[in-house]
């Protein structure tokens, strides 16, 4: 316990406190398929009854609530729908140097996936630019969103 500072007559005691949980989640067949795809270096989406392709796949259509159908491969390339440039990454962020968050609509998908874009600077990023996923080494992939280390600009495409 340490004494808290204050400009009042009573000083309060404080202490550090940590909540830490391991959490192991069962993912089910739909998210499981998506994660399995990532482990295998592919990105999967799911078709909804109205014909849209939802990525990442959900068990139910996000708008209508109807059960989704078959899995389909999308990408690997996609288009940036929106972006935000992080000037000073926080310790928990995926990259430890300035980067962009991006919402990427992969080719064949009707919804965007959130990830990070590793680019030289904010001037190299724009809505509409083409990007592709950079996967970690195959033997390091376990089936999680971080199996994609980051998206990177497609070489030669206009930014």
């Amino acid at each position, binding site marked *: 316990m340490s004494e808290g500072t204050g400009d009042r007559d009573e000083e309060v005691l404080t202490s550090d406190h940590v909540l830490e949980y391991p959490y192991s989640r069962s993912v089910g067949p739909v998210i499981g398929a998506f994660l399995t795809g990532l482990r295998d270096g592919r990105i999967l989406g799911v078709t909804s009854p109205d014909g849209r392709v939802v990525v990442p796949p959900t068990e139910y259509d*996000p708008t209508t609530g109807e059960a989704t159908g078959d899995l389909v491969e999308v990408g690997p390339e996609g288009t940036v729908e929106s972006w935000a440039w992080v000037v000073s990454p926080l310790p*928990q962020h995926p990259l430890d140097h300035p980067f962009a968050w991006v919402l990427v609509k992969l080719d064949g998908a009707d919804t965007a996936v959130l990830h990070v874009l590793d680019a030289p600077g904010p001037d190299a990023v724009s809505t509409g630019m083409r990007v592709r996923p950079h996967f970690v080494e195959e033997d390091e992939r376990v089936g999680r969103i971080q199996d994609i280390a980051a998206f990177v600009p497609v070489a030669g495409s206009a930014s």
Partner: protein
Amino acid sequence: MPTPPSPRRGRRPVAVVSFAQADNVRRESHHNEVETLMPVFAELFAKTGSGITKDDIDFICSGSTDYLIGGPFSFVAALDAIGVYPPRRESHVEMDAAWALYEAWVALQDEGVDTALVYGFGKSSLGQLHKILSLQLDPYVMAPLWPDPVSLAALQARTLLDAGTASEADFAAVAARSRRAALENPKAQVAYDRTVEQLLAEEYVVAPLRRHALPPITDGAAAVVLAAGTRAFEWAERPAWITGIDHRIETHALGARDLASSPSTARAGLEAGVGDGPVDVAELHAPFAHQELILAAALGLGEGVDLNPSGGALAANALMAGGLIRIGEAATRVMDGRAGRAVAHATSGPVLQHNLVTVLEGV
């Protein structure tokens, strides 16, 4: 005695009859949540000028989240601030207290439940707020990347720029107007008089958002008393009648949402009857400057509406109480006659996922 206006939905008219809040500060380093709430309740009851006490309250509902303090059932401890032994009828939402108000409104539709105390509180200074708020995201494909609320808000702000519906100067104008209005609010945390040019000279935090477009981190608490039917006239000369109240939520899947607009706010506003009459004042719960533009558009609020005269969430952003404070601030202006018809909005979840809209009227 005037006739309470009939609500759009529901059987009984319900009104806000009192509102009080703690000082909004960056860090309340002395008082715990209970010690913060007790003077708020004392002021809340005193303001009615009718000698009411907690024993006149039929139902208590609070909003808070244990994740801010890092301890389970922390909201139960807060009940010591009102005293719940012998046992009282009470409930809690692990959300902004605006939704505790919604639950209280539902409870008050029952004959026999005539009065309610609604309160919200949270000390954002105690924990790693940006990590805590990341945990409300999809745990499988989003939260593991730990996107913080500023980053998500920046993604949303970019969509407005891309659509051409707003500019960075528009964001700064919202911030300048809000912080200037906050100079008149003794409870505000961040208040200043700066120009758009001065604000645009700031560095980006997460582009396109600069510091001025972000909410402060706040420790705070607030409370409201609701009363149903003519009972409200015993506690307020001019109650703020809730003539409409509705809330709607969008999908959890961020990439499937239209971030440039707020369809859930538009729908809630429609169901609450915002467009049924003129709006004098609107308190919109927009923690990020660009979000006020989205919300005002979603609710169809035009030029003549006094937006966030309190300074809004840019002036003080007490998590779990901020939405209730919007309702309280709007209600206060109805009760003191500055407004005849007011709109109050509250938001929950990442980038305006879940939205509640109320319409408050005086008679």
